[in-house]
């Protein structure tokens, strides 16, 4: 029973398009008032982008970032789900583990960087661990919380109908935790992405979008800075909207009819 003024139907994509247009417009207006070397307009940035796409530099950075993201995020999701389900079988110690996660989570993932760099030295490993750590916490927490909030009556009903333990897990627990699991996975993705870009900006190793951004900044190359910002924003939006939202709509179909 909401105010009823939410927008539906064809208006939603329209709002997204207008939002993008609005951002580009503001950018272009700022660019017009500032000197070129402080803020380039849209066109030179797009030119730079198409140039770097053609030259192949772009792919090296993109692939480097995506490889780190994929590895870190993948490890985090797998460990998070396993950890969450395992914790569900504990009782009081689960509460302790939850607090461990909550405390460690209050530390920005980037703060681990100096530690990991010293322990593992330069390289991909500390970066991937930071990304994984950033994603692990929300993933594990969401699964832990979800297993707790399965409705008791849903379990009782299945037992009355003669469900086997495995049937109970497969047909009641799993679909019941799915919404929170997916929300957790999306949250984890946002965290992983932020951690990735930060750690790439901070650690000067290998190729990556974050490093390419900080390099552009260090060399005062504003066109490069804007081009990289653009790529980072578009990529995050694409992965979230095209990949994660699709998976969500597929798995939670019943919520959208």
């Amino acid at each position, binding site marked *: 029973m909401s105010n009823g003024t939410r927008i539906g139907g064809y208006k939603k994509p329209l709002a997204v398009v207008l939002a993008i247009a609005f951002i580009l417009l503001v950018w272009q207006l700022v660019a017009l008032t500032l000197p070129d070397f402080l803020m380039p307009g849209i066109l030179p940035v797009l030119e730079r982008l198409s140039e770097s796409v053609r030259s192949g530099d772009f792919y090296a950075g993109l692939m480097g970032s995506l490889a780190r993201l994929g590895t870190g995020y993948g490890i985090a999701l797998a460990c998070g789900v396993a950890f969450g389900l395992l914790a569900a079988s504990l009782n009081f110690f689960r509460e302790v583990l939850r607090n461990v996660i909550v405390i460690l989570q209050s530390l920005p993932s980037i703060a681990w960087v100096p530690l990991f760099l010293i322990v593992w030295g330069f390289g991909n490993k500390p970066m991937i661990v930071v990304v994984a750590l950033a994603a692990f916490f929300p993933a594990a927490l969401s699964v832990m919380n979800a297993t707790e909030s399965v409705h008791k*009556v849903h379990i009782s*009903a299945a037992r*009355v*109908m003669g469900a086997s333990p495995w049937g109970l897990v497969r047909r009641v627990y799993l679909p019941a935790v799915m919404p929170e699991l997916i929300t957790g996975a999306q949250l984890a993705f946002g965290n992983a992405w932020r951690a990735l870009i930060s750690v790439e900006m901070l650690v000067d190793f290998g190729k990556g979008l974050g490093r390419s951004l900080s390099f552009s900044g260090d060399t005062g190359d504003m066109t490069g800075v804007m081009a990289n910002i653009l790529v980072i924003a578009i990529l995050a939006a694409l992965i979230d909207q095209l990949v994660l939202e699709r998976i969500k709509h597929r798995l939670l179909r019943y919520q959208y009819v």
Partner: protein
Amino acid sequence: MNLSFSNVYKQFGSLSVVDNFSAGFHSGEIVALVGPSGSGKSTLLHMAAGLEKTTSGTIETDAQPVTKPDPSRTLVFQEHALYPWLTLKQNVAMALEFQHVARKQAYERAATWLQRVGLDGFENYYPHQVSGGMRQRAALARAFIAEPEVLLLDEPFGALDALTRLSLQDVLLDLVEQARPTVLLVTHDVDEALFLADRVMVFSARPATVLKEFNLSHRERSHDLSDLAAEKREILSLLGIAVKHESKSEQSDKLAA
């Protein structure tokens, strides 16, 4: 199937909820349980279903002690217990699938039962897409489809409007006539109890003990309850309600107590 309680006690922690309850219920019989809110009626049904253990005393079906849930004893929960991620048809079919009926056949029988409770055309709707009354009907279909020998109904018609309520009462009577299960029916509605039941058990406030039992099995079932006016008056007064217009102050006292 005969269901019998012998000297059943139930405590939650130090809270005594059922106090020395003994009774026998027989195949083809509908017994209505009425009593104040929180008196322990739902707890009785849960114990009969095998979802809760008794603190002491035994519950038996045909001389077999009840230790765990079994599809032959089906419970319709007071709260909404459909799975939100399944369509109405899938929800109803689940009762059969847990008993290893092939999916196709389960779906067919589910569709038939949805029709009997007046839900044809809504087979592929999800629970949140239909009204509370329709959900309640689907829950009843899910209970009926397993052809239980003991049917435990916890305020099954509570959420329904007058029309639907009357029609589903008929579906129940029809089922009892054909399959002759043992039916325990918890209800707040004295008229409903008088119309449906062969026997009415009136419970005291917590811990639940039987105040009085009314045997109505001799009478012709009718919505015109004028023949049962005396019983109705007595039940209401057992429940603490004077039929005649009382002075306000006494009323408020009673409510505040």
